[in-house]
């Protein structure tokens, strides 16, 4: 059993993130560098769940991503699984309640996720370097900033609560 308690408000947080991803993002910031709110939701789950459950959540989020961008079905599932499992496993070495640690987690996670997706989907070399050196850092930055702002605005909703 996880020592981190799942408060009801965190589910509201997930609804908020899904709404941001599918309704607000297309209206405001629609491009390859746009923040990935589903990835933020995945990281929120990963730092609270056991690594196995985080891997399953990563697989599901990755499949959603693949189905919506079917350039190579399965590449997103693979990438999200690896990143979510690593994030859940890595919380043993860092405590992810610090805002900057969370920002680093979002940014690093997005970059690694994009790298795995691009490699697993057989991306041509020129698109690979472009994706890894230009678009992935931009999306990592935007996701980290958006994630930090959300964590600051909804601190209570996303706070990690340890069981007594």
């Amino acid at each position, binding site marked *: 059993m996880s020592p981190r308690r799942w408060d009801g408000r965190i589910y509201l947080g997930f609804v908020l993130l899904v709404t941001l*991803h599918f309704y607000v993002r*297309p*209206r405001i910031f629609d491009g390859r560098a746009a923040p990935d709110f589903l990835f933020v939701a995945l990281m929120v789950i990963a730092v609270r769940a*056991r*690594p196995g459950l985080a891997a399953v959540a990563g697989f599901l989020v990755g499949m959603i991503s693949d189905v919506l961008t079917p*350039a190579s079905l399965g590449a997103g599932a693979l990438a999200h699984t690896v990143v979510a499992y690593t994030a859940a496993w890595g919380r043993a070495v860092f405590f992810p309640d610090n805002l900057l640690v969370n920002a680093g987690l979002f940014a690093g996670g997005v970059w690694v996720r994009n790298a795995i997706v691009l490699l697993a989907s057989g991306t041509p070399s020129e698109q690979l370097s472009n994706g890894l050196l230009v678009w992935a850092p931009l999306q990592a930055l935007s996701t980290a900033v958006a994630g930090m702002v959300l964590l600051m605005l909804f601190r209570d909703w996303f706070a990690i609560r340890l069981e007594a």
Partner: protein
Amino acid sequence: MIRARGRATSRSDSLLLLACLVLSAAVIALPDAWSQSLAKVVRDTVLSPLLWVQRQAEEGRTSRSRFQAVQAERDSAALASQSVAALTAENARLRALLDLRARTASTSVPAEVLHQTAPTEGRTLLLSVGAATGVRAGDPVVTPEGLLGVLVSVGTQSAVAMTWAHPDFRVSAVTADGSVLGIVVPSTSTDASQAFLEFRGVAYRDTVATGTLVLTSGLGGVYPKGVPIGRVVGVRSEELGWERIYRMAPLANPGHVAHALVVRTPAIAGPVP
């Protein structure tokens, strides 16, 4: 070593990870037809409400920000269309003189582009048109700027287009003056700054000047004739003295396009002159 409760990686965690990795690898290994069908089923069922929400958002955004641009384009189109009636009549007379049958008419369906955040976005695009509008896999997708791609999968509420940035994309092309034929493919250059198209299969004796507009040739029956693809920006390579490969700058940008038109191609009984 004593591990903190809840932080240790247990055997069940490892098994779940392994299961997810194996499933992911299995999905990657699926044949294209199967994976497209699987994606279509999930889009039409589980993700249907989320796509509906995104479609509303896209329509809301574009209906505000693009209204003036669309109005200006409509005015220009209305002005240009004043001469269409005369041209149509002249074309009909000439066809009658040459004993040619009438050109097959094609209609188009407007679609919103539902951009996603995956790094492979741009190679494929999700469009807000479904089978109910009459579109089908194989229909070309164009923008006011030029050719964008072709539909590869059509669901009930959405469709997936393969754009010119996809490694599998191919289109038969011709220069604007009709003198040089070739095949346009995505660039395989290793230079990141040269993410362009390539105009391949041009005979060594033919020279294409920089800036030349390249259009679809209509050969192959997938893409209609005369849709702009891009402009030649230089010679990429010369293959052993028998072929030149030209670099092309595409006209339509899959990363920024918000609207597209799906051209519904009617079944053609025979070649159109």
